[in-house]
């Protein structure tokens, strides 16, 4: 990578006003790319939650055991929400790219091979399609023609939810790639406990697979085990890595050695239980 020519040439003093400082940060902050990707990630997850839970109202998922008239009714109730909401999803799902780039960068900053960063990058770039866009397309087509044969709407309903819940392999292998990188890393980019949390997350991704088999009960796509418990784990995992990535960016020194601790965190980190090698 070419070294920056501007780091030395630009004055280091941001202006006083808040807006001026924001503009200065956007243009000159040495970590602007990292912060940009981080904020895109935060905004993406917020939007994702709002769109899936409140605009389209496809989550929490309805029951796979419903009969056809009920499903048609479900589509009718949400007609506009589905079309508008998934329209916005199509608009914004490109926001995954900076997010995945940041996650890949975290692996690039570790002392491990670049294979990890690139594998993760490609896997997670792929994951948005079965994990989100196929569902959005199926739902959009379902809502497109309310007068369609109800049996076909029923099929689209199954297609949408099963493609959403039932294609966790990319997330499973992706989190395993990430956690192995963290465990091998000597640069202390992430605490080791996050790797173990990643293992918990990977194990819950396995648990969704029975959604392909059951139409009711705890293992169906809306079941207590296949959906609710997983959702709690996934939200925990996501929240944790958002915070940890933020801390990684704060600690970033653009070197290749171990990431330094934050000055004020250094004392508490050595006394506490978090991620310090004995």
């Amino acid at each position, binding site marked *: 990578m070419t070294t920056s020519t501007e780091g030395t040439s630009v004055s280091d003093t941001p202006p006083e006003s808040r807006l001026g400082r924001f503009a200065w940060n956007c243009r000159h902050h040495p970590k602007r790319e990292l912060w940009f990707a981080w904020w895109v990630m935060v905004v993406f997850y917020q939007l994702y939650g709002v769109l899936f839970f409140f605009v389209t109202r496809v989550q929490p998922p309805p029951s796979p055991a419903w009969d056809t008239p009920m499903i048609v009714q479900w589509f009718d109730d949400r007609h506009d929400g589905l079309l508008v909401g998934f329209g916005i999803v199509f608009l914004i799902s490109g926001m995954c790219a900076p997010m995945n780039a940041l996650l890949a960068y975290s692996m690039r900053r570790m002392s491990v091979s670049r294979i990890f960063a690139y594998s993760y990058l490609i896997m997670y770039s792929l994951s948005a399609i079965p994990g989100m866009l196929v569902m959005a397309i199926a739902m959009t087509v379902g809502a497109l023609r309310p007068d369609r044969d109800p049996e076909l709407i029923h099929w689209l309903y199954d297609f949408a939810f099963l493609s959403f819940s039932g294609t966790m392999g990319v997330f499973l292998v992706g989190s395993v790639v990430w956690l192995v990188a963290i465990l091998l890393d000597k640069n202390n980019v992430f605490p080791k*406990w996050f790797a173990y*949390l990643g293992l918990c997350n990977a194990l819950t991704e396995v648990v969704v697979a029975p959604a392909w088999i059951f139409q009711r*009960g705890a293992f169906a796509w809306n079941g207590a085990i296949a959906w609710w418990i997983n959702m709690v784990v996934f939200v925990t995992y996501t929240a944790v890595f958002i915070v940890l990535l933020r801390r990684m960016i704060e600690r970033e020194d653009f070197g290749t050695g171990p990431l330094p601790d934050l000055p004020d965190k250094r004392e508490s980190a050595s006394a506490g239980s978090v991620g310090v090698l004995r």
Partner: protein
Amino acid sequence: MTEVAQPQLEETRSRFVPGQPDMWLFVLFEALLFTGYFSVYLVSRTQNQDLYLQSQADLDLRVGVFNTIVLLSSSWAIARCVRAAREGVYPAALRYAFVTVGFGVVFVISKVAEWIHEIGMGNTFTSDEFFQHYFFLTSLHCIHVLIGFIVMGVVIYQLRSPARRSQQLVETGATYWHTVDFLWVLIFAMLYVVR
């Protein structure tokens, strides 16, 4: 448990967390996760008591007891391994690590044999609610055992060469293996004994 007085021990060794403290987060989080699965199981069980009792009769308690004792023994072996490694007796530590893996293999074989037996009796993942939970919990636990083999591989790799031998990694691996053990203790009680 009885607090047998170990005065020398408290004096000679300052208190420490075995292994990476980070692993304890996994232990506690995973325990919570399984508690969630058990709670779902117990609630659905109470809603359909008779079906669960009927299906449960097809499980052989003796097999479960055997499995439990095998895993407890493996847990004991890995505890011995940790002690031996701490005292620097690496050949013994390595031996106990292999014993641990051996018990793990026996566990997996007997588990698979039990599955084959149950499937032969017509009890599959899809046959009824009890067996849904049975196959789900046992196979998820089995995945933990398989990951445990990888962990034990790391432990053995550490113990083999004088250049490595990180006591911390050995203890971390042991903590993981004990987790697999105590999760099984709970699963065993849930599936085989609860009425």
